[in-house]
């Protein structure tokens, strides 16, 4: 029992630090990648290649003056970023990072918890994340912050529908399981889900961009219209939490996309490679390689997120809503219908 608690505590800590570390370095990589796309150099003064830049930024955030507006609701003002950060970190709990490790006859799964309704849990936590933005923007008692919060919540709610429906289609192809562990594990033998769900993946990707408030859907914080959007009144580390949580969201949604549609820690000819290396099932080297593969996919997705951000201009608000309700929602319903028919014909669904 004690060993179980220690093992879970270690995994929790590792995933926590991993999320924070990846988010920190995603900020640096974002700036570097933007620089590469724009024929610039990017930050390179703090440490070699600017590698200490996230530390410097974090230090700056901590030491900045903390301003809480007099007219704001103090409790809710603090609750907003905390909730946003909390939900961002909570999403990492259900993702299996690699194959199980067998140490001393005991199997350890590299996942904080395997809930059998993992997908549902994920959607639930993500939709609580909206409250972080909404409460933060509302409690600021500032027009711009309120507008940003309204935009953020309406945008996230709108795109959650198309996202949810595309996930339902995915779950039907995956044989009706809601456990993320099983969804990833069953892509081990067969093809990655993106082969069966190309349209679903596209919809999911667009919705993920909108859910994480990234360009071209970054209307909640569009500087040209709303000063800073929902975090206009925030300063110091509370602002840092908002910005940081956004990067964690990006990391987690990349991990989800890589897991749901691109096989997570699986990769083509993995079994052949392990056999050639003479590795037994449950070896830690297999987990390490799988983890590396998963991270490569996540990294590619993060790069695509940034690539999109530095290419596309922001949508207008009515365009955003049109795209969400009039294009993505019908498309995802179509995708769902096609999936159901195909799976019925294949004999995987029984009425």
């Amino acid at each position, binding site marked *: 029992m004690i060993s179980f608690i220690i093992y879970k505590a270690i995994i929790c800590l590792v995933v926590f630090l991993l999320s924070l570390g990846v988010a920190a370095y995603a900020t640096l990589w974002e700036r570097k990648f933007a*620089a*590469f*796309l*724009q*024929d*610039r*150099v990017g930050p*390179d003064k703090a440490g070699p290649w600017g590698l200490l830049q996230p530390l410097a930024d974090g230090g700056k955030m901590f030491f900045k003056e903390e301003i809480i507006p007099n007219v704001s609701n103090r409790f809710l003002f603090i609750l907003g970023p905390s909730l946003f950060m909390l939900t961002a970190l909570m999403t990492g709990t259900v993702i299996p990072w690699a194959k199980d490790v067998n140490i001393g006859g005991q199997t350890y799964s590299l996942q904080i918890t395997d809930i059998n309704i993992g997908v549902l849990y994920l959607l639930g936590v993500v939709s609580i994340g909206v409250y972080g933005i909404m409460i933060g923007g509302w409690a600021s008692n500032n027009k711009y912050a309120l507008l940003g919060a309204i935009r953020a919540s309406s945008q996230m709610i709108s795109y959650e529908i198309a996202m949810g429906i595309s996930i339902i289609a995915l779950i039907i192809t995956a044989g009706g399981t809601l456990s993320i562990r099983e969804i990833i594990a069953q892509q081990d033998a067969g093809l990655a889900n993106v082969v069966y769900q190309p349209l679903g993946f596209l919809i999911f990707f667009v919705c993920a961009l909108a859910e994480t408030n990234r360009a071209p859907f970054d209307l909640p914080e569009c500087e040209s219209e709303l000063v800073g959007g929902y975090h206009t009144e925030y300063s110091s580390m509370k602002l840092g939490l908002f910005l940081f949580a956004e990067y964690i969201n990006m990391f987690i949604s990349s991990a989800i996309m890589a897991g749901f549609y691109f096989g997570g820690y699986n990769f083509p000819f993995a079994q052949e490679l392990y056999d050639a290396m003479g590795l037994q099932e449950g070896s830690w080297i297999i987990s390490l390689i799988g983890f590396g593969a998963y991270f490569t996919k996540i990294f590619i997705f993060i790069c695509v997120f940034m*690539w*999109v951000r*530095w*290419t*596309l201009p922001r949508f207008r608000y009515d365009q955003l809503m049109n*795209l969400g309700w009039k294009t993505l929602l019908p498309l995802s319903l179509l995708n769902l219908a096609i999936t159901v028919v195909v799976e019925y014909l294949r004999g995987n669904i029984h009425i």
Partner: protein
Amino acid sequence: MQLTNRSKVVSNKEQSFMERLYLPAVAKGMLITASHLFKKTPTTKYPEQTRPMAPVYRGQHVLKRDENGAERCTACGLCAVACPAEAITMESAERKKGEEHLYREEKYAKTYEINMLRCIFCGLCEEACPKEAIFLTDRIVDAEYEREDFVYGKDKLVEKTDKRIDVSKRQTLEVAEFKKIAGTKHNTLWDGKKQLKDKH
């Protein structure tokens, strides 16, 4: 009524299905940005790297001393007259006995100020100078916080005896020859007209 032929007929036609799909246009844009990933950055990392400068770059001025270390400037005021930006002011004074090692001629500049905010670095002062006293160098004027700090006095302009500033590149034979041509009328006394006839 048509005033110019530059007007264009505005088309307000409906977007086609492919256009409404956004995706082809998005892909096109993404490819354009991606192509920039592989381009060389033209950045010069300034304080560490500097871009090559022309050998006759016109930067911060220097007031030269002669080979004995005496100031060459005689406060004739030709530079101030030549200056199109009116950046130069000076006050002259008479050389006292025993100051021969400090000033080359009987008259010298007691104060000599160039306002670096007014200066346009055209080099006309240098061209006007009959005593080869003022030169523009390849040094860059420093940034300052206060406006008055840009008014450089003799303390900043006159070269230090132990830290001579090399202006040989701006003092080439061609420059010396050019300076003898009338129209710039200095260095030679009154045979300017004859020189002009000789040269042209």
